[in-house]
Structures are given as C-alpha cells and as structure tokens.
C-alpha cells in the first residue's frame, strides 16, 4: 500500500508538472519507489518473521539445533524476503509501466534481485540482534525511515552539495535507486553502484554469520 501512497503523494501530487534530469517527475520517481518497495518488503518479510520466530514462538532455537550450517540457515531465512520483495516490486513495476513509459531491460532484474538479497540480509541481521520486538521497530525508525527519504527515491543527488552526496552514497538504497533509474531512463548503467549493493549485501551476510557463530556453537 505505501508505494501506491508514495506514488499518489509525490508522483501525482507534489511532482505534477515537474521535471528532474530532463524527464517528468513521474518517470523519475517510479524506479525509486520500486527500489524502496524492494527494500521495505524484503526487510520486513525476512526480519519480522525471524524476529517473531525467535522471540515470540521461540521456534528458531529448533532450527539452530538442526544439522544445518549457518550459511544455509541465513540464506534460507533470507529467501522469503527475496521472494516477497521481488513479487511486490514486480507488481509495482507493472503498475509503473501502465502509467508511465519506461524502458525495462533484463538488466533491471539484476539490481532488483541484489537489492532484495541485501535488505533481506539486513532484516535477518536486525532480527538476530534484536532483544525485543520493540528493537525491530526502533531499527526501522532509525535506519529504514531515514533511508526511505534520503535514499535517492524522491530527489536527484545531483541537486545536492558534495558533502550531502557523500552521506547519500553510504546508504544502500541510493545505489539501488540509481541502478533501476538508469535502466528505465536509458542512462549509462552505474556499475559502481551495482558493486556497492553487492558490497552492502556481503557485509550484512557476514554480519549474520558472525552473530550466529558468536551466540551459539
């Protein structure tokens, strides 16, 4: 629901008649909202479910006691986020294509898939570190919410001063938005941003492994 609200509020409301980087604001904002959708859906699907399994149902211990390696376990727990993130993003992509002309090539899928993996790993990491359900809500408020508005979804980083650009580029969502936007607007593909998404994903994955190994045998 929130991507549609963002589309209505920013795409049709605030951005009507506006142009950014030589295209209509609607064309500019849709790939950003798809990246944002991939982020929130993947994070919530992987993280919230694990958080509930761990702290409420307490059935995560059962999985920890099964003969499954930490790598398989983290991948398995993340895949639900990846799958849901992809499905919801693709549904929104279809809506986007219906309301605004967009170029979509197979290259669109690669950053989208990597975005889903990266934020699923982030969700799993947050859920493994959380000591209560409140911790997950706090994490969302302190990390996801700022990323939502600063991650290059709603405005172009080219409009910002250099110091602020640096902050934007340490946010994984910025790179996802740039990759998806480059494909849909037919701009040169930012391979460095794709590499950054992979880097963030790997960092979160390694973080998950370390947290699991630190806690249990």
């Amino acid at each position: 629901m929130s991507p549609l609200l963002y589309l209505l509020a920013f795409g049709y409301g605030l951005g009507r008649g506006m142009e950014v980087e030589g295209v209509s604001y609607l064309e500019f904002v849709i790939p950003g909202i798809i990246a944002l959708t991939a982020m929130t859906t993947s994070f919530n699907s992987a993280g919230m479910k694990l958080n509930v399994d761990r702290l409420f149902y307490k059935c995560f211990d059962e999985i920890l006691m099964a003969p499954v390696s930490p790598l398989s376990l983290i991948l398995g727990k993340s895949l639900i986020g990846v799958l849901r993130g992809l499905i919801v993003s693709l549904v929104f992509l279809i809506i986007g294509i219906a309301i605004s002309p967009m170029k979509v090539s197979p290259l669109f899928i690669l950053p989208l898939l990597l975005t889903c993996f990266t934020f699923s790993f982030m969700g799993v990491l947050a859920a493994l570190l959380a000591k209560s359900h409140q911790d997950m809500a706090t994490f969302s408020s302190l990390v996801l919410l700022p990323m939502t508005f600063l991650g290059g979804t709603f405005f172009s980083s080219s409009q910002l001063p250099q110091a602020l650009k640096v902050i934007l580029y340490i946010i994984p969502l910025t790179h996802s938005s740039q990759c998806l936007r480059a494909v849909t607007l037919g701009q040169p593909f930012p391979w460095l941003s794709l590499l950054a998404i992979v880097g963030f994903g790997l960092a979160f994955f390694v973080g998950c492994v370390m947290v699991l190994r630190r806690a249990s045998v």
Partner: protein
Amino acid sequence: MIIIEKLTKVYGEVRAVKKLNLEVYSGEIFGFLGPNGAGKTTTLRILTTLTKPTSGCVWIKGFDVITQPLQVKGEFGVVQQHLSLDRELTVWENMELHARLHHIGGVERRRRIAELLDYVELSQYANQIVENLSGGMKRRLMIARALIHRPKLLFLDEPTVGLDAQTRRRLWELIRRMNLDGATVFLTTHYIEEAEALCHRVGIIYQGQLIALGSPLELRQQVGMTTVETLSDNKDPDYHYFSDRAAATAYVQSLPPEVKTITTRDSNLEDVFVELTGRKVGDD
C-alpha cells in the same frame, strides 16, 4: 553417551555453571534436579549447542560439542521447556519442516511422520493448526518432532512444567516407553516426584555446582531413609534423618511435649536437597 568436563559458563558477574563434571550413560534416564536458576537450562543449552561455554569440554557420542557441532546436532533430539512449535503451521507441517531440516527424504519422511504421530496419539490432529491444540498435545507434538531423526539421545527440559497431573503422568509413560525403545534420556526438572518416578540416576545442581549424584535410592540412603519432621510454636519445621523406622520411632518418643506436630515418613529427594543446601527445591 555424554561426558562433561569442568564445564563453566559465566554471564557477566554471574557464574551460571561452575566446573561441572558429569557422565551420562547409554540407556539411562538421567535427571538433572535443581531449583529455578540453578544452572540446569544453561547446561542443557550448552549440551544442545545453543550456548557457548566459557570453558570446559563436552562430548556427545564421542563428538566434541564445541568443535563438531554439525555432527553432534544429528545425534540428539530436544524438547524445550517453552513451547517452540510454529503455531501458524499444522501438526503435520511442523513435523515436515523438522524432518526436512534433518535431511530426511520424501517417502521415508511421510512414513516417519505418520508413525510418530501415531506413537504420541496425535494422528487424528495431523491437519490441525498447532495454535488450536491443548498444552499436553503441544508437548506430545514436541516429543514426536524431537524423535523424527531417530536420535539415541533425548534432552527434555522441564518436560511436564505447567501440565495437569493426568497429562503429566501420560507424558511420564511416554518417556518410559521411549527409554525402553532404546533412547537415553537426559531430563531437567524441579519436580521431586518426577525425578523419583522416572530417573535411574539423578544429579542435583545448586548454584551452578553438582552437589549430589546417584540413584534416587542411593541419594536417600545418604541422608537416611526415614525423616522425622517436627514443628514447634512459631518456628520453621526441623528435619531429622534416620537410617530406619526403628531409629526414627525411638527419636520421636524422646521428644519433649513442646513439639506440637511430628510427622514420620520415608525420605525423598527433597530431603536430600534440604539437607545439602539448607533450602527447599521450590524456594527462589
């Protein structure tokens, strides 16, 4: 089956388990008895690879729990103290998930699930959502789930806590049956009667240390087979232990008239615990 050497677990300032040495033999029902906070669950979490010890060694069926966790995990089944089922799934789906985690293939998986649900008398509830089951049924499902990979060692953490007397006795029967079918059972409990009714040997843990070890009979013999409990005005009860009834009777006859209430009975593991620690198992 299990060898524990100098096992220690420290949480900040708290030493939950202190240099614990213990051996659990194949084929026995071993009871780990102690009050809440004594270190039972911490020990169990270390044995089941959920918690890293601060120091010490543990071997299960010859595998080192610290360095060979994947091999160890295939050797035991666990029934935790709290309900640890996925309550949004059905009875069958919970079994299915666990069987897959233990790499049990298609036909064999379905056969074992059907067999185990029958074993714990839950076949007719196979398609029920777990949330809708009673406490005793959930506990039986946890036992069935723990048996899916046919482990020879079962860890039961307070298996009957919160259950009514009838369900508890039904579970005791199930535990005895599993033991007769070849499983070594390691159970933690703070119920004296549970340890006495089920266990071949009992280890009493208090403040992280093993303070007594033996069969229930041996432990009772250590303090005396007969207990005389006396109560005077405005005082806590006093316990006196005797090797037999005759010695206890002679003592009772020698008591002064101020002693208002006198109870002579067989000693139990509670008396062993009181004698060794000066407090009752249920005291927190």
